[in-house]
């Protein structure tokens, strides 16, 4: 199969190239080991990093609707006269006033930023994260309830002091596998009734991860405060997935009509406001490198790819050196091939293909090593609940980086070698 593919690519020379590749690999075992070690080690790190990036970006428990959702996570105000800027999460009243009122049918969930607090369970201290949410939060996410149920609009209307906890807190509180629903938990001198227990999620799902979830009405903050900035974010799940852009456009119109906060402060008096309903990744890049209308996506991805490129360049340069000496050892072969009709271009292709085969072998090794590392990370407690996966995207990513690596480290030596004069090459 591989040979057929190569043959179609290089006019029937595939089998010959494969044979010579494997013969050369076998001939200098130590070189081969060093090359393969460098390649597979680099690629393993890249594959694990890709898996981690995929974990950060792709939908996963409990945010299975992530790629169908829009996020309003931050709001930025600028004072163009004094040159000041302020940014942060939106307020609960902002969500009620400007997001829940959007006309395009969609479900809107509000969730506060997570906070941490020490709670005392069975006489020992436990540091936990908590957040306030509305009832829609449970509809937009897909938390698995190990027992009990989520709080509803009715609980909020009744002003019930209830809480949903995750299994980690449950295990600490009542013991592993024991029932916690109905028990009371004290937080900040207020007693809450445990209404449900969910399977926890990794902290990397930063928009939804927490140990405790409270209905927003139990917060001591003034949720009716009309200021634009607060401590909440909104997740919007359109009823119809095709309404994605429609909602973005509608919110953009709404946002353009909002007046910036008038604080009356002579030092900071914002006159521009930037708030967007973004896809998950964009909401993330906007926080990191966004500026005004610019989502920061291009900058963040450029930096990311720049880092990956640099990371690949160093071992690639090493491999280039190894490749040059490997190829120069074969000067006589190059001379013979040229004498019998190989053009420089054909030889470049041959050596690049040889190098790609080598890096693909390294890539396969890297896949196995990555699987081992991912298995270890998923089953260790380094990051609780982490669920890295080795899916087809990661696999294709691994193959793509292998190919780029192969090209990076193969083209220059091949080009240098192909320029050898036949007579010189034949002398070895």
């Amino acid at each position, binding site marked *: 199969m591989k040979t057929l593919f190569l043959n179609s690519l290089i006019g029937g020379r595939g089998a010959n190239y494969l044979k010579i590749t494997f013969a050369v690999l076998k001939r200098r075992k130590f070189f081969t080991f060093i090359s393969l070690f460098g390649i597979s080690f680099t690629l393993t790190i890249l594959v694990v990093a890709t898996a981690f990036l995929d974990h950060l970006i792709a939908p996963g428990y409990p945010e299975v609707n992530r790629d169908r959702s829009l996020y309003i996570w931050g709001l930025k105000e600028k004072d163009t006269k004094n040159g000041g800027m302020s940014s942060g999460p939106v307020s609960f009243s902002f969500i009620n006033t400007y997001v829940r009122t959007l006309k395009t049918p969609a479900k809107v969930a509000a969730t506060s930023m997570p906070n941490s607090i020490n709670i005392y369970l069975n006489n020992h201290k436990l540091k936990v994260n908590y957040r306030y949410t509305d009832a829609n939060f449970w509809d937009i996410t897909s938390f698995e309830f190990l027992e009990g149920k989520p709080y509803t609009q009715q609980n909020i209307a009744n002003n019930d002091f209830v809480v949903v906890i995750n299994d980690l807190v449950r295990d600490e509180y009542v013991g592993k596998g024991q029932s916690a629903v109905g028990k009371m938990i004290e937080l900040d001198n207020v007693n809450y009734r445990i209404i449900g227990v969910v399977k926890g999620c990794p902290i990397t799902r930063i928009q939804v991860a927490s140990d405790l979830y409270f209905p927003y009405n139990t917060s001591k903050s003034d949720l009716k405060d009309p200021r634009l900035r607060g401590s909440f974010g909104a997740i919007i799940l359109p009823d119809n997935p095709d309404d994605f852009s429609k909602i973005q456009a509608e919110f953009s119109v709404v946002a353009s009509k909002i007046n910036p906060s008038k604080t009356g402060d002579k030092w900071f008096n914002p006159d521009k406001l930037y708030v967007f309903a973004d896809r998950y990744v964009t909401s993330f890049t906007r926080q990191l490198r966004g500026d005004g209308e610019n989502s920061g996506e291009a900058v963040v991805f450029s930096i990311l790819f720049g880092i990956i490129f640099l990371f690949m360049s160093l071992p690639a340069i090493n491999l280039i050196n190894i490749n040059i000496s490997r190829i120069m050892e074969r000067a006589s072969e190059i001379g013979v091939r*040229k*004498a019998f009709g190989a053009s420089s271009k054909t030889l470049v292709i041959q050596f690049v293909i040889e190098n790609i085969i080598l890096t693909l072998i390294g890539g396969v090794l890297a896949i196995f090593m990555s699987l081992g590392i991912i298995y270890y990370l998923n089953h260790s407690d380094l990051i609780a609940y982490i669920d890295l996966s080795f899916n087809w995207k990661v696999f294709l990513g691994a193959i793509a980086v292998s190919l780029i690596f192969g090209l990076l480290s193969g083209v220059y030596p091949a080009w240098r070698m192909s320029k050898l004069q036949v007579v010189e090459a034949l002398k070895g």
Partner: protein
Amino acid sequence: MINLKNIEKIYRTSTVETVALNNINLSVEKGEFVSIMGPSGCGKSTLLNIIGLLDEPSKGKVEIDGKHTNGLPDSQLAQFRNQTLGFIFQSFHLINDLPVLDNVELPLLYRKVSGNERRRLATEALEKVGLSNRMKHYPNQLSGGQKQRVAIARAIVGQPEIILADEPTGNLDSNMGNEIMDILTTLNQRDKATIVMVTHDENMAKRTHRLIRLFDGSQVQ
């Protein structure tokens, strides 16, 4: 078939200029078997390399099979070597990582020839040199004479019109050298191949149609 006009080859370094070939004019007709002789360093191999388009003259014109080859781009030179020329080297220059059959197939790799056809032609060429029983061997499993026969098979597999042999018997004992010479003579007589051979050996040169002698880069006979 081969026409060289006023060929000069000068090797220059920053301090020294060495004239390897000086005003060589040479014509080889189709079907001729020509030998080039001369002492070591007289420019025999340089001349052969220029005829074989493996090296460029500093001055002069090279015309092969009616085609001027000076200044041809790399891809066209490669194609020309592939279609028209076959080489036999003193030190065989086989690819040790490939078995005999693959070595012989080499010129056909750079033509549009199917795998089966390559195999058939390479087997035929090996039969012609009496080595069809060694197809799966690797070069380092063969004797010197056998290696040179593989090299001859490789040179003739693409049925080139011209065979260039650079001291083909130089690394062999006289028996094996004679065997190789027999094969070359047969190729010339039976297959009408034009052969230019560099040799040190008067006896081998006597078996060719014509002898060209070089001395210090100039043609003396």
